[in-house]
């Protein structure tokens, strides 16, 4: 290949003055993790609420839940981020808009909200699906022993459903990590953004992107192994619906 490899570039000082290019990638990794974890919390909270709403015995609520899922699922993430970043602040009252825009961590917060809502529609689908795979008898049993709907969900359906959902939720969390890279388009210096910046400053294109690739693979492996351990710890003996 007609390309001059120079792996030592990782230990050369970067022009941002915060150490080496490797440190720059590590800073990027920290932003990737922070963004993914915060966005995942947003996705879990909203996704669970909407997911549960879609299984409740109120038609209008289920419809509303469906609409929410379709809205966030059918617009590309990049476009949603642009809407949150460039469009929504202009629609707010002027002072609020200015406040939002001048937040120091604007790109980070926008990414958390944007990716969080985007992923929440996917979480909602998993949650509804998880609840719907439970045998109908469980819901009936709850009603039979005199539990309210809320209690049935709290004590019977959700604890089981989340256990079943753990593997698909793990893969959605991995998707969240991958999707956090889209935030580089609104100026967030996460891992892919850092690799791009390293490429721009050092001109060592493939060292930068290869290093980022390896870091993503490691991150992916760590999360996967961690979630497997969690799955084993919380599994209910004899109820092996999650395979």
């Amino acid at each position, binding site marked *: 290949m007609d390309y001059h490899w120079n792996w030592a570039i990782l230990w050369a000082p970067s022009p941002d003055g915060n150490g080496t290019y490797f440190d720059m990638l590590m800073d990027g990794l920290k932003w990737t993790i922070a963004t993914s974890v915060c966005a995942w919390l947003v996705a879990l909270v909203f996704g669970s609420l909407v997911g549960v709403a879609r299984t409740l015995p109120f038609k209008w609520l289920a419809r509303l839940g469906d609409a929410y899922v379709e809205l966030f699922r059918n617009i590309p993430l990049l476009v949603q981020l642009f809407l949150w970043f460039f469009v929504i602040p202009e629609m707010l009252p002027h002072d609020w808009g200015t406040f939002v825009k001048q937040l120091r961590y*604007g790109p980070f917060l926008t990414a958390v909200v944007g990716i969080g809502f985007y992923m929440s529609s996917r979480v909602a689908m998993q949650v509804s699906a998880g609840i719907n795979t439970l045998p109908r008898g469980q819901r009936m049993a709850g009603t039979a022993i005199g539990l309210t709907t809320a209690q049935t969900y709290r004590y019977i359906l959700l604890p089981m459903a989340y256990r079943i959902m753990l593997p698909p939720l793990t893969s959605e969390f991995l998707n969240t990590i991958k999707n956090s890279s889209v935030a580089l388009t609104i100026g967030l210096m996460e891992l892919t953004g850092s690799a*791009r910046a390293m490429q721009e400053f050092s001109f060592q294109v493939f060292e930068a992107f290869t290093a980022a690739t390896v870091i993503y693979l490691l991150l992916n492996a760590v999360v996967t192994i961690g979630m497997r351990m969690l799955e084993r710890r919380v599994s209910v003996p004899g109820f092996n619906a999650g395979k």
Partner: protein
Amino acid sequence: MNVSKILIAGCFTAFLSLPAGAQELTGTLKKIKDTGTITIGYRESSIPFSYLDDNQKPVGFAMDICAKVVATVKKELKLDKLDVAYTPVTSATRIPLIANGTVDLECGSTTNNADRQKQVAFTNTHYLTASRFVSKKSSNIKSIADLAGKTVVSTSGTTNIKQLNEANTERKLNINIIPAKDHAEAFLMVETDRAVAFVMDDILLSSLVAGAKDPSAYVISEDAFSKPEPYGIMLRRDDPAFKTVVDGATAALYKSPEIMTIYTKWFQSPIPPKNLNLNVTISAPLKKAFANPTDSGDPAAY
């Protein structure tokens, strides 16, 4: 590097039109001859050098210069027909795309410096500009020191964002630096108050301000991050045959009166898409650089 020697050789080959078959073609010239196509990289919003007009076609000062280069290449290779393919590039993608052969000539607003010459080659300088910043008058920012602690945007992959990073570290300004994809997007961040300032080459800033909804709302700083630095059209490194042709074509153009016609067209007359007139008279150093074309990346040489 002996510039004049290259120039003489360039003019010689360009104008005496040595029979192309007489020497074995190599590199980019061979590729252009074989494929009958030359690929030009253009920018989205480097006004007035290289940008999209009302019909989304790339136009500009650098594009006109490249058209001359293409004509010379066509003549040089004795081609009846030479197709021109246009590929959009950003500040972040232009250097790898030149290096990996996707683009043959990058016609835009690329600063020529020693660092980049290790990766790519530049032909003779077509503009000189210093790195400054634009901000809203209302934010009352006068100097680089006033940027301390604020959010400042620049275009990713430019010398400007590098200079901003360096100044930030050196002077401990604690500036929150946001990279944007292209100049229009970066300017938009200032326009919508996402960032207080946009650090860029002053000529690009003036054209963005001129095209803004309310040009009087903006001010370009006196304070500069750099001396005026040269812009050059970029081509692949280690391809002396192609560079000779391109250098010859640009040198001939810059020394002829035609360059002033092109200059006036883009800097002193109404230009698309909004029919604005930038009204920038030619600076003495640039006049000198046209009279004695050079591909030096050293600001002190101008």
